[in-house]
């Protein structure tokens, strides 16, 4: 399977076999990600990291991934000091970054920005989140986390909880989990339900998701509980946000009803939706999940830059 120069824009651009291949390669990256082993695989390669929107985990893990592979990173974490502020188009910024680097990773507040960047770039483009659109590397690391903890994805009962309307993570994840034939339950406040088109996509893979607002009932059977933050920045209306914020919370009382081996995941940052008391339980997987971004992004960078395989 050849990924050289391939853009990573949307999880929907990848077949199940290709995702399996990436996840399998990511597993082999773990000793390099936690510095047990060292490599100069991407020596002399430069990654341009263009973050037009704030990011902590995604940006740091992309930078760390590139450094762990022996490569270098240029870029910015805040567009205020760039030509964008002077009115430069994204297309022109990309043409410039393309000539300075071997790959571009971009986060941008507008949907479709990464797809546009790929049109104007010769070097491969990785989407690190485009507004409320796609975030494929998050999706891959979520799949990787379930796979490594549960040994398989198929057949797991996965509960997606929270803002299922605006949350980009849960849309791509619902699609990908359906591709892998997981059982899906969507739990959300009434006004933040999973959009119909996402549910239809799941059905196209033969998965029949259950939608409910009853978390207590859903958690009893769950193998994976995937919690998301209600993202204030995605709400068109502050009133709507105020009505739903704090409408659900995962704490130890709730988890008493869960299976012993339930894993709790969260793309982070969390605010109030998971009580810190959960951190100490064996259910809490979200920090390990955040670490998993590193081997997954190392695998992707290595594959698209055509580095010899480790």
């Amino acid at each position, binding site marked *: 399977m050849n990924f050289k120069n391939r853009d990573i824009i*949307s999880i*929907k651009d990848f077949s199940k076999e290709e995702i399996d291949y990436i996840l399998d390669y990511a597993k082999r990256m773990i000793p390099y990600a936690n510095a047990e082993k060292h490599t100069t695989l991407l020596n002399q390669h430069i990654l341009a990291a263009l973050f037009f929107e704030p990011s902590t985990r995604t940006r740091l893990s992309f930078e760390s991934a590139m450094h762990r592979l022996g490569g270098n990173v240029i870029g910015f974490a805040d567009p205020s000091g760039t030509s964008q502020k002077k009115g430069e*188009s*994204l*297309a022109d910024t990309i043409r410039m970054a393309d000539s300075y680097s071997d790959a571009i990773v971009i986060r*941008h*507040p*507008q*949907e*479709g*920005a990464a*797809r*546009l960047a790929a*049109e104007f770039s010769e070097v491969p483009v990785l989407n690190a989140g*485009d*507004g*409320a*659109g*796609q975030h494929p590397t998050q999706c891959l690391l979520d799949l990787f986390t379930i796979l490594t903890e549960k040994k398989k994805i198929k057949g797991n009962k996965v509960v997606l909880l929270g803002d299922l309307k605006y949350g980009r993570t849960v849309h791509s994840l619902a699609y990908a989990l359906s591709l892998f034939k997981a059982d899906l339950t969507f739990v959300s406040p009434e006004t933040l339900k999973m959009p119909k*088109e996402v549910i239809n996509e799941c059905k196209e893979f033969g998965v029949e998701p259950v939608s409910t607002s009853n978390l207590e009932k859903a958690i009893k059977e769950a193998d994976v509980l995937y919690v998301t933050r209600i993202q204030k920045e995605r709400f068109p209306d502050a009133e709507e946000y105020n009505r739903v914020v704090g409408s659900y919370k995962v704490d130890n009382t709730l988890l008493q009803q869960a299976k012993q081996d339930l894993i709790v995941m969260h793309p982070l940052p969390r605010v109030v939706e998971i009580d810190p008391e959960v951190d100490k339980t064996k259910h809490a997987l979200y920090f390990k999940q955040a670490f998993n971004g590193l081997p997954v992004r190392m695998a992707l960078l290595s594959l698209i830059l055509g580095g010899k395989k480790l």
Partner: protein
Amino acid sequence: MKELKVTPIKDGTVIDHITPGHALKVLHVLKIPESTSSVVSILMNVNGKKGKKDIVKIENRELDPKELDKIALIAPKATINIIRDYEVVKKHIVELPNEVVGLTKCSNPTCISNAREPVESRFHVISKDPLRIKCYYCEREPEDIAEGII
């Protein structure tokens, strides 16, 4: 003598087999009345061989290929007859391509294709009947395609 509801036209275009109720949307995409001062006739809910349909007749104007593509987006079963001296000289059955470029705007205001970037709007046709299109950039499906037509 029986009076005709709408008389035949001498020169111009007759758009037939428009989905019933969509005639005004066809006028909207053709920028009528702004783009013509000639006579335009509209028939809605006419009984045809295959059920009800709308018909639009535009005098002294022949549609160009780009306009035909736009009509395909809102009336995918339409036929377009070019009339010269009361005769049909050309007949087009509109056909939607697999990709629609530069014809309709993405309805998502934060889609990058609506920003000041050097790109045209671009949609994949995911279903022709019923018509469903998906933005190449933001992957959203517009609810009202006619609304966004450029």
